[in-house]
C-alpha cells in the first residue's frame, strides 16, 4: 500500500522535480557518509592556495590550500543538520501552537495570533541579528533562534489549516465525547493536516538552508574551524576580485540544493492542489 503510494507520487513528479529529487538524494548521501566519500579530510592542506580544478582536487583548493570538494561534503553535514534541526523545532512549536490556537479559539487564539503577528512584523534577519548580538555563537543557539523565528510562519499556516478542520463533524463528535484539547490536536487535527504541512516542511527547510548560509556568510553563523557552505563562501570571497571563482562553488551548492527542493515541492503542491480542488 505504502509502496504504491510512493510510486504514485513519484510517477506524477515533473521531470524537473525528478532531477531535483536526485540531487537532494546525492547531497544527503554525501553528507551522511562524508568521511567515506570525501577524498581528503576537511582540514588537510593538499596543495597551493586557490589551485584551479584538477585531477588531484576536483573542485580546486581554497584560500588555505584545502580541498574544496572535501570541505563541501563535510560542510554539508553542518548545513543539513542545523537547518534540519531548526526546521523540526519550528514545526513542533508552530504546529502545536497553531493547532492549539485553532482548537481553543477565543482569548487563547487572540493572544497567540497577535503575539505571532508581532514577531512577524520584524524581518527575520533583523531580529536574528539583534538577538545574536547578545547570545553566544554556538550551534544550539543558532538552531533555537532560527527555529523560533521560523515557527511564526508555520504557526500561521497550521492555524489556517486547522481552523478549517475544527468545524468538521468528527471534531465536534470528539468534543462531545469529552476528549481533551491535546487528544483533539494529535488525533483529529494532525492526521488531517499532514499533507499541506509536509509541502511546507520542504519550503521551510530550503528557507532555513538559505538563512543559515546568510548568517554564516555574515560571520554570525557557524564559527571556524567548523565550516558550512555559507562560511565557505565568506572564506573564499576575497578571491573573486582576482577572478578566482572558489567562493561560487559553495554558493552554487546552496543554490542547487534550494532550487531542487523548490522544484520537488512545487511539483507535489500542484499535484495535491489539483486533487483537492485548488486548495
Amino acid at each position, binding site marked *: 500500500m505504502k509502496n504504491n503510494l510512493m510510486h504514485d507520487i513519484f510517477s506524477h513528479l515533473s521531470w*524537473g522535480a525528478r532531477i531535483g529529487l536526485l540531487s537532494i538524494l546525492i547531497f544527503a548521501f554525501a553528507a551522511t557518509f562524508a568521511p567515506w566519500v570525501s577524498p581528503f579530510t576537511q582540514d588537510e592542506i593538499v596543495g597551493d592556495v586557490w589551485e584551479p580544478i584538477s585531477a588531484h582536487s576536483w573542485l580546486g583548493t581554497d584560500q588555505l590550500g584545502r580541498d574544496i570538494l572535501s570541505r563541501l561534503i563535510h560542510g554539508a553535514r553542518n548545513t543539513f543538520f542545523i537547518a534540519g534541526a531548526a526546521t523540526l523545532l519550528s514545526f513542533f512549536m508552530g504546529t502545536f501552537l497553531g493547532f492549539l490556537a485553532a482548537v481553543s479559539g477565543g482569548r487563547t487564539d487572540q493572544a497567540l495570533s497577535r503575539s505571532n503577528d*508581532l*514577531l512577524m*512584523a*520584524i*524581518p527575520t*534577519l*533583523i*531580529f536574528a*541579528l*539583534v*538577538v*545574536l*548580538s*547578545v*547570545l*553566544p555563537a554556538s550551534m544550539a543557539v543558532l538552531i533555537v533562534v532560527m527555529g523560533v523565528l521560523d515557527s511564526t510562519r508555520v504557526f500561521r499556516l497550521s492555524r489556517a489549516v486547522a481552523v478549517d478542520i475544527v468545524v468538521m463533524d468528527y471534531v465536534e463528535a470528539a468534543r462531545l465525547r469529552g476528549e481533551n484539547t491535546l487528544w483533539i490536536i494529535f488525533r483529529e487535527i494532525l492526521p488531517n493536516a499532514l499533507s499541506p504541512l509536509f509541502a511546507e516542511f520542504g519550503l521551510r527547510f*530550503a528557507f532555513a538552508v*538559505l538563512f543559515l*548560509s*546568510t548568517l554564516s*556568510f*555574515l*560571520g*554570525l553563523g557557524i564559527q571556524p574551524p567548523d565550516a558550512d557552505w*555559507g562560511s565557505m*563562501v565568506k572564506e573564499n*570571497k576575497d578571491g*573573486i*576580485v*582576482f*577572478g578566482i*571563482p572558489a*567562493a*561560487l562553488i559553495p*554558493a*552554487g551548492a*546552496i*543554490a542547487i540544493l*534550494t*532550487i531542487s*527542493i*523548490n*522544484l520537488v515541492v*512545487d511539483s507535489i503542491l500542484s499535484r495535491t492542489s489539483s486533487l483537492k480542488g485548488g486548495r
Partner: protein
Amino acid sequence: MAVDNNSLSTLVVKRLALGLLLLLAISVLIFAGTELLPGDVAQSILGQSATPEAVANLRAEMGLDRPALTRYFSWLFGIVQGDLGTSLSSGRDIRTMIGDRLGNTLFLASSAAIISVPLAIFLGMVAVHYRDGIVDKMISITTIATISLPEFFIGYLLILFLAVNWNLLPSSSIVYSDMSFLERLTAIAIPCITLTFVVLAHMMRMTRAAILNVMNSAYIETAELKGLSPFKIIFHHALPNAISPIITVVVLNLAYLVVGVIVVEIIFVYPGMGQLLVDHVTNRDVPVVQAVGLIFAAIYILLNMFADIMSIIANPRLRHPK
C-alpha cells in the same frame, strides 16, 4: 458620499494608529531581545576573566544596574528626541556614526526599486498575455531559480563576470560624499542589479497571480466577447482591478529590499546601515545594534502600513466589508 469619505479616513487613521502601536511594541521587543536574554553586556566587554568587582563597576557606569523598565523608557525617550545613545566599542555618538549611511542605504534600495518595480509589473503582464505558453514557462522557471538563489551567489557571479572578466563596471562600491551623481550610479551598478534580481522574480510572480485572478472574472469574458484586443483587456479591465494586490506585492517587496540590502552591502563593502549593523553585531555593541535594528524595523513597518493604506484607498471593497 460624505459617509463614505468619512469611513475611508477613519480606516486610514485606524491603520496609522495600529502602525504606531506596532512600532512601540517592536521597540519593546528589540529592547527585551537584547536586555532580558541570558548574556551580560558588561561581562562580554570585559571578557570572562574579569573580576566581579570590575564587572559591577562597569555595569554601574553604564547604568545597567537600574531596573530594565527604567532603562527602556530612558532609551525610548532618548530615541524620540533624536538621541540614539553612544557606542560601547568606540564611545562615539551613534547618530554621527549613522551619518551618511542611512542616505546611502536608501539610495541603493530606491535605485533598485526604480528598476525592479516597473520591470516586474511589465513582465507579469507579459506572462499573463502569453499564459501557459513558452514565454510564461520560461518566466516561471527563472522565477523559481532566482527565488532559490542566495544573494551572495548572484552578487559574486555578477562581480566575476561584469567587473573582473569583462571589465564593464567597477567591482568596488565604495561611495564618498563628494562623488558626482553619475559616479555614484556607476559605483552602485552591480549591487543594484543584484538587488533587482533578488526581488524581481517574486514581484513578477505575484503580479502574474493577481492579474490572472482577475482574468477569470465574468466581466473579462464579456470584454473578450465584445471583441476587445487582449492588451486592451489587460490594461483597461484587468489591471485596475488587480492594482490593489499589486500595490501590496510591490510594497511588501520594497520592505524585503530593506532586508536584502543588508547582505548586498556586505557583499559589495558598501558603506550603509546594513554594514554598520553586521559589524556591530560581531562586536557585540548592543546600543548600536538596538538603534540600527529599530531603524530597519521602523522602515519595514512603515512600508507595510503604507501598503495597507494604499490598498484600502485603491479597493472600494475593502472599505465595505460584508
